[in-house]
């Protein structure tokens, strides 16, 4: 850090500054770091210290049909969402990096607008729109709703990857006689695959975590893990919810780590 001598603050400012940053980062982590270990508490209390450790809440999570059904629903919905959102989002990103794209800024703004528009408003709009179509209380309806929320993640991630992609490779492929689809499949897709994978992971995580759309669109048949947790948080806080949260965090962290490593290898 020697290169910044003159621009840096003297020690009497730097120490409180670093202390402040440290405290803020600690406070950011504290609730999670404190709450998650409670899922291993043998007693149904939400306090420390524990009298004994146990996996009973995890056992309950994986044996109760209410929770396992919710987990299966979440996985099915999140995987379907990932497939649809990744396909639509990747194709859209390929179009959007082309400078010839008409009204590119406006279309890009539309593509990422689901991140800004309040989810409750999107949920109400879909609920009204779906009711004559019979899509409320259906898996298809929930997947559509989640795809709306997940597609901006894919568009942003893949667009970022494509700005580093050398489009001369596509010309070379075209010069060697490959059609657009063949060139995409054999040249572009393998190169941008880590970006697409990262987008897919974000799409999966956003759907796996989503509860507001589910509250609007889903029926009892589509009860997902976050919905089950939300109901529990509002009615009766029970350590099984913490076990479910731990499972959710572990699953999404693993996926994030895979995507991160795939991107680092490039």
């Amino acid at each position, binding site marked *: *850090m020697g290169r910044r001598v*003159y*621009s*840096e603050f003297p020690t009497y400012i730097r120490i409180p*500054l*670093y202390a*402040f*940053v440290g405290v803020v980062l600690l406070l*950011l982590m504290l*609730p*999670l770091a*404190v*709450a*998650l270990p*409670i899922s291993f508490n043998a007693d149904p209390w939400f*306090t*420390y210290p524990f009298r004994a450790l146990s996996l009973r809440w995890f056992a309950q999570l994986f044996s109760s049909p209410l929770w396992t059904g919710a987990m299966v629903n979440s996985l099915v919905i999140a995987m379907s969402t990932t497939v649809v959102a990744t*396909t639509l989002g990747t194709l*859209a990103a*390929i*179009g959007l*990096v*082309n400078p*010839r*794209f*008409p009204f590119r800024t406006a*279309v890009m703004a*539309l*593509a990422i607008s*689901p991140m800004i*528009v*309040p*989810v409750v*408003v*999107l*949920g*109400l*709009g879909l609920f*009204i*729109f779906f009711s004559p179509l019979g899509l409320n209380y259906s898996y298809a309806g929930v997947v559509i709703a989640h*795809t*709306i929320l997940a597609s901006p993640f894919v568009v942003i991630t893949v667009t970022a990857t494509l700005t580093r992609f050398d*489009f*001369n490779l596509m010309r070379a492929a*075209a010069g060697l006689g490959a059609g657009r689809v063949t060139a995409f499949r054999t040249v572009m897709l393998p190169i941008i695959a880590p970006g697409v994978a990262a987008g897919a992971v974000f799409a999966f*995580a956003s759907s796996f*975590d989503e509860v*507001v759309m589910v*509250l*609007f669109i889903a029926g009892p048949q589509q009860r997902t893990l976050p919905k089950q*947790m939300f109901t529990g*948080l*509002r009615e009766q*806080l029970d350590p099984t*919810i913490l076990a479910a949260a731990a499972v*959710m*965090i572990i699953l*999404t*962290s693993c996926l*994030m780590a895979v995507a991160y490593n795939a991107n680092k290898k490039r």
Partner: protein
Amino acid sequence: MTLPYGDVGLVMTQTNTAPQVASPAAHVVVRSTIRRDNNRRAVRAALPAAPLMIFLLLFLVIPIGSIIHTAVSDREIWKALPLTTQALQAWDGDDLPDAAVYMMLGQELEAAGHAGSVRPLGRRMGYELSRGANIILNAQRTLSEDFDRAAPEAWKAQLIKADPAWGQSGVWSIIKHYNGRYSAFYLRWATGFPVKIDADGRLSQETSYDFQSIYLRTILISLVVTGLTIVIGYPLAYVIANSSGRTAAVLLFFILLPFWTSLLVRTMSWIVFLQTNGVLNNALAGTGLISEPLSLLYTRMATIVAMIQIQLPFTVLPMISVMRAIPVNQVKAARSLGAGPLLAHATIFLPQAVPGIAAGGLLTFVLCLGFYLTPALVGGPSDQMVSFFIARFTNEDLNWGLASALSTVLIFGAGLVALPLARHVARHSSDRI
């Protein structure tokens, strides 16, 4: 960025056609060929994005359009009582309508009973008239009794016997007012105008939702959260922007961690942390600092703290990218010319970081306006924001008109605040963010 592959063709077209440019007529032909070519290329460029665009049009643009449509649709009264509404247009509103109108209303109510549209009518009347649903249902019930159906006066007597409200002007003035499919009723309600009247036509004293204070509360909470995330986030962004390599990566990892962990799980962790028998209260009691547990959960404080934790990355990231682009030499120059470290920072560094602060703050403010989950779970009844009421009117009260009107106010309000500011921010921040 390298040029996409589609450009090869244009170069070839131009070289192919260039030698033919001899006469003005040929020139025009070439130019229109090029234009056609360009259009075709634009369509081909847009083609891969078409599936997502169609998807968003169907499931984002049209649903938001249908929210606005639902907010101004108001057809229950007109649909159930079309002839009565029309006949009442001639009524001056001072005395009671003619007995013939009573008869017409009675017959239309009977027909509506068969068509199953009395219940929606009653509910709609109840939104605007105290006891409105009862007034309609009482009238419908009494019409099945035996009375002289040929005489208009008998209809009138029967209705007034069913409910004295039919002998007053309030209910009639409402029926008169809704002679079409659309009205501003839900929007007036959602913007906080008093809409409910009593049977005598005067404004009802019944307390209802105070939407204006709900909007104020939404804006206030969002402003406080935005201000605090800027104050907390600025030193954070400064330290991250000025550290290098591994330190910066680790700090960024901690900032981004909330991005990666479920919003629901983070909100849940605040509940576990703050509740009456929760970790914090027990720790405080254990150290002897408090004897009674503090009520920390379900407060404005808990809502704001949890929202800050969620929003901090959104505020900090734009700040970091702007701060990284600020040349170090300028601060050095100021220091070497004798400015103290804080003065150099405040006069040289801070003004250049403003675009990042503005972008991060604006993003956080707009996102805060739509918060639902966090206030619903860690806030008390007086901390709920607009989104909470939209969800409640949709899922519990089934009042889609009011929910849609609130949504319309929310998106137009947020758009009115955000768009000019966003343009201003974009103009002053170049393409660094």
